[in-house]
C-alpha cells in the first residue's frame, strides 16, 4: 500500500473555493476507493460472443471448478453460455491475442538482483495481437513460494523503477513455474522487464529480478 498523496500538494491554481472543495471531495473518494485492480490475463479479454443456439457452448475460458455448473446452466439455458474461441488461441490471424507461439518473437532473460541468489526467469514474448495485447509465457525458477497475501509481479520499468504491471503470480514450492501473462502497453515506452515481490507486512514491492543486458 502506498502513501496517499496530500491534496494540497496535488492541486494548485483552482480559482474558487467551491471548486477546490469539489476537487477535494473527488480526492477523498479516490483515496477511499483504492486502486482499481489489475485484471488477470484470464479476464483481460471479453469471454467472447455467446454461441448461437445450435452451437456447443465453449467453456474453455472458465476455470475447471466452474465447468460442471456451467454445463448444467448451458443445458437449461440454451444459447446462454459463452463462446470463447479466441481465448483458446485458435482464432484466425486477425484475432485478438493468441498464446505465444512455439517460436516467440523475442525471449528475454531475467537474473536475480541479489547476486548470491540462483533464481532466474525467461519471458517468451509472442507477437502483438490485433487487439494490441502482447501475449507472453513467463517461466521462473528458484524463487520462494510466497505465503497468502504476498505475490510476485512481472513489471515494466523505466529508469530502474517499476511503472506498470503485466500480472501477478506465485510460484510452486519446488521446480519451475510457468504462467501466461499479457501486456497491453507500448513496450518501447519502457526500459526493461523486472519481477517484484510484494510483502504484505510492509506493503512494499522489492525488485527481485531484472532483465539481463
Amino acid at each position, binding site marked *: 500500500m502506498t502513501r496517499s498523496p496530500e491534496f494540497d500538494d*496535488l492541486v494548485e491554481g483552482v480559482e474558487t473555493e467551491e471548486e477546490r472543495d469539489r476537487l477535494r471531495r473527488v480526492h477523498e473518494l479516490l483515496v477511499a476507493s483504492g486502486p482499481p485492480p489489475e485484471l488477470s490475463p484470464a479476464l483481460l479479454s471479453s469471454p467472447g460472443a455467446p454461441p448461437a443456439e445450435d452451437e456447443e457452448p465453449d467453456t474453455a475460458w472458465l476455470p475447471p471448478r466452474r465447468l460442471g455448473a456451467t454445463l448444467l446452466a448451458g443445458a437449461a439455458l440454451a444459447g446462454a453460455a459463452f463462446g470463447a474461441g479466441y481465448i483458446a488461441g485458435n482464432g484466425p490471424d486477425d484475432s485478438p491475442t493468441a498464446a505465444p507461439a512455439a517460436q516467440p518473437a523475442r525471449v528475454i532473460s531475467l537474473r536475480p538482483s541479489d547476486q548470491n541468489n540462483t533464481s532466474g526467469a525467461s519471458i517468451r514474448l509472442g507477437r502483438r495481437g490485433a487487439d494490441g495485447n502482447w501475449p507472453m509465457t513467463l517461466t521462473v525458477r528458484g524463487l520462494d513460494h510466497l505465503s497468502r497475501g504476498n505475490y510476485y509481479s512481472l513489471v515494466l520499468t523505466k529508469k530502474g523503477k517499476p511503472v506498470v504491471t503485466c500480472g501477478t503470480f506465485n510460484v510452486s514450492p519446488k521446480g519451475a513455474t510457468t504462467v501466461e501473462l499479457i501486456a497491453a502497453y507500448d513496450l518501447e515506452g519502457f526500459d526493461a522487464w523486472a519481477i517484484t515481490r510484494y510483502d504484505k507486512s510492509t506493503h512494499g514491492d522489492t525488485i527481485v529480478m531484472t532483465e539481463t543486458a
Partner: protein
Amino acid sequence: MFVLSYSDVSDGELIRMVGSGDRTAFDALYRRYARPVFGLALRRLGDRGRAEDAVQETFASVWRAAGSYKPERGPGAPWLYAVARNAIVDNGRAKREPPVEAPDEVAAEDGPADRAESGWIAWRVHRALAELPERERRVIELAYWGGRSQSEIAELLEIPIGTVKTRTRTGLARLAAVLEDVL
C-alpha cells in the same frame, strides 16, 4: 442498430442491445465493466481466484438477464451493480467455509450498509477513472497508487511538472463532473 464505436452508447442502451442478442455490445459492456466488477468482487471476497469466478458469473448473468432490463426503471450502472453484487454474494455464500471457532470480539469491519455504500462508490470511481483520457488517468494513478510525487511523475513521463499539475487538476475536475451525485 449500426454502431461504429460504443464509447458514446450509454450503459442502459448497451444492456438493451445485449438483451437483444448483440454480441459486440456484450464485448463492449465487458470491456467497460470488467474492472469495476473485479474490483467489487475482490473487495468483498478478498481472493483473486474467487473474484475471477464472480466476474465470469456476473457476465453470464448479464447475458441471461439483459433482456429483462427496463430502461424506464433506471440507468444501466445500478442494474449492473445489482447483478454483480448478487453474483458475488452467491459466490461468497457457496464457497464460505465454516469458521473453526467463534470470534471472541465483534469484528471492527463496516456493516452491510456501509459496505454496500463503499462498494457502490468505489464501483463508480473506478468506472469514472476508466473513462478519463489516458494522459490524465496515468498521472492520477501514479500519484494516488504509484506512490510518486509530482516531480517524480514528471521525470518518469518526461513532461514538465506544470503539465503534470494541469493533467491532475483537469482529471480531478472530469471525475467531479461524472461523480457529481456522490460528491
